[in-house]
């Protein structure tokens, strides 16, 4: 799946001169790292990769029952006039992506922003946000959760689960 996403990126980005990758905390960074590695194998170029945390930009801060916990933001390059590929594991309401765009603009004005997600939960968007690159689309209902597990987080293997909450 990651290989296919990378091939799609290759088609749209020619030589990747102006492209940077930005993984969203907390879990998008694992996917971003994998994409970076695979692109290096395919094209031989190593893309700059940053981590973006959206906690301080969220609009549901304090409206949630659980408090948010901030993670590290690390953007070791200049975003100005770059093509940014924003990477996250699951796209659901689109609110994190909105916050991520806001957070990113604090670093400069990118020439364009593309969105890459592993799992797209269709028909659940609160905002007019659509991904450019999708690993897999799934139909889900509100009460279900999509859980992605990465080996980097000390799971035995990579897994994507669709969890239905018990009533």
């Amino acid at each position, binding site marked *: 799946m990651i290989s296919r996403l990378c091939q799609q990126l290759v088609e749209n980005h020619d030589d990747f001169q102006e492209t940077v990758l930005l993984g969203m905390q907390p879990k998008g960074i694992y996917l971003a790292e994998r994409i970076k590695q695979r692109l290096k194998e395919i094209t031989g170029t190593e893309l700059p990769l940053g981590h973006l945390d959206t906690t*301080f*930009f969220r609009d549901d*801060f*304090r409206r949630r029952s659980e408090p948010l916990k901030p*993670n590290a*933001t690390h953007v070791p390059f200049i975003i100005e006039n770059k093509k940014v590929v924003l990477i996250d594991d699951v796209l659901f309401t689109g609110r994190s992506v909105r916050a991520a765009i*806001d957070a990113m603009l*604090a*670093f400069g004005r990118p020439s364009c922003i593309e969105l890459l997600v592993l799992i797209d939960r269709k028909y659940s968007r609160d905002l007019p946000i659509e991904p450019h690159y999708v690993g897999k689309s799934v139909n889900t209902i509100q009460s279900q959760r999509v859980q992605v597990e990465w080996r980097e987080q000390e799971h035995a293997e990579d897994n994507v689960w669709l969890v239905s909450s018990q009533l």
Partner: protein
Amino acid sequence: MDSKLSVRHLLGIKELTQSDILHIFETGAQFKEVINRPIKKVPSLRDITVANVFFENSTRTRLSFELAEKRLSADVINFSAASSSVKKGETLLDTVRNILSMKVDMIVMRHSCPGAPHFLSKHIQANIINAGDGTHEHPTQALLDTFSMYQHFDGNLEGKKVVIVGDISHSRVALSNIFALQKLGAEVMVCGPITLIPKYMEALGVKVELDIRKALQWCDVANVLRIQMERQKTKNFPSLREYSTYYGINKALLEELNKEILIMHPGPINRGVELTSDVADSEHSIILDQVENGVATRMAILFLLAQRQE
């Protein structure tokens, strides 16, 4: 680690747990990254109004708080007692209730009476941050001091030796620092003229040393306090000159030691009294880091307390 603070108000360090303090540090480190960005502002507290209520003078703390609030996009109102109805005889509670009727969510308060913020917290709903109450506590200063040490020693203060030098009995910074350092596992010593060291120090588990040389030899960090001229009405030491001869830290004193120690100062420095310029501006000193960390730490405190709005 629990991601919620155990308290609704920051009244003093005494009320915090170790995990609260570490949580503030962790969040503070993120905000330190934020304030070094080209755009230093985040929208987290855009729906919050904060009143800075200062019944006692302050430059640094007030500026630092105001900057922290503005970097979090909060609305800020400032109030200082000198130019207000307090002069006309309004009580503390009335003043604050009036401010709160204007829909203010958080209060940052400095007051000359120890316990004033504690009193207020029993009567009002807003979150209160103590920005110094008399000679009692100054929790945000202690948090930024310990945060600066924490970052300097790569996130561990366990077993570190810290000496606090100067006027301990009039210092709210000293008391808050003692609580914070002990909660983080550091050893604390105080050093100063015997007239400026309160009797209860040993009961707090703090060592007392009257000889600055021995104190510096013992410690990893020296946090040097300002001699507060405004609180020296009864003469606790004969003259400033005598104080600086016996307790002032200068380059020669540091060079006598066979190790490097860290020099801190909460500001404002009386140059030539507690620290000479060659020490204050040397590579041992992290005084300006403390100021930067002050904004980041206060942002973290505001951010975390805003999550405890009810």
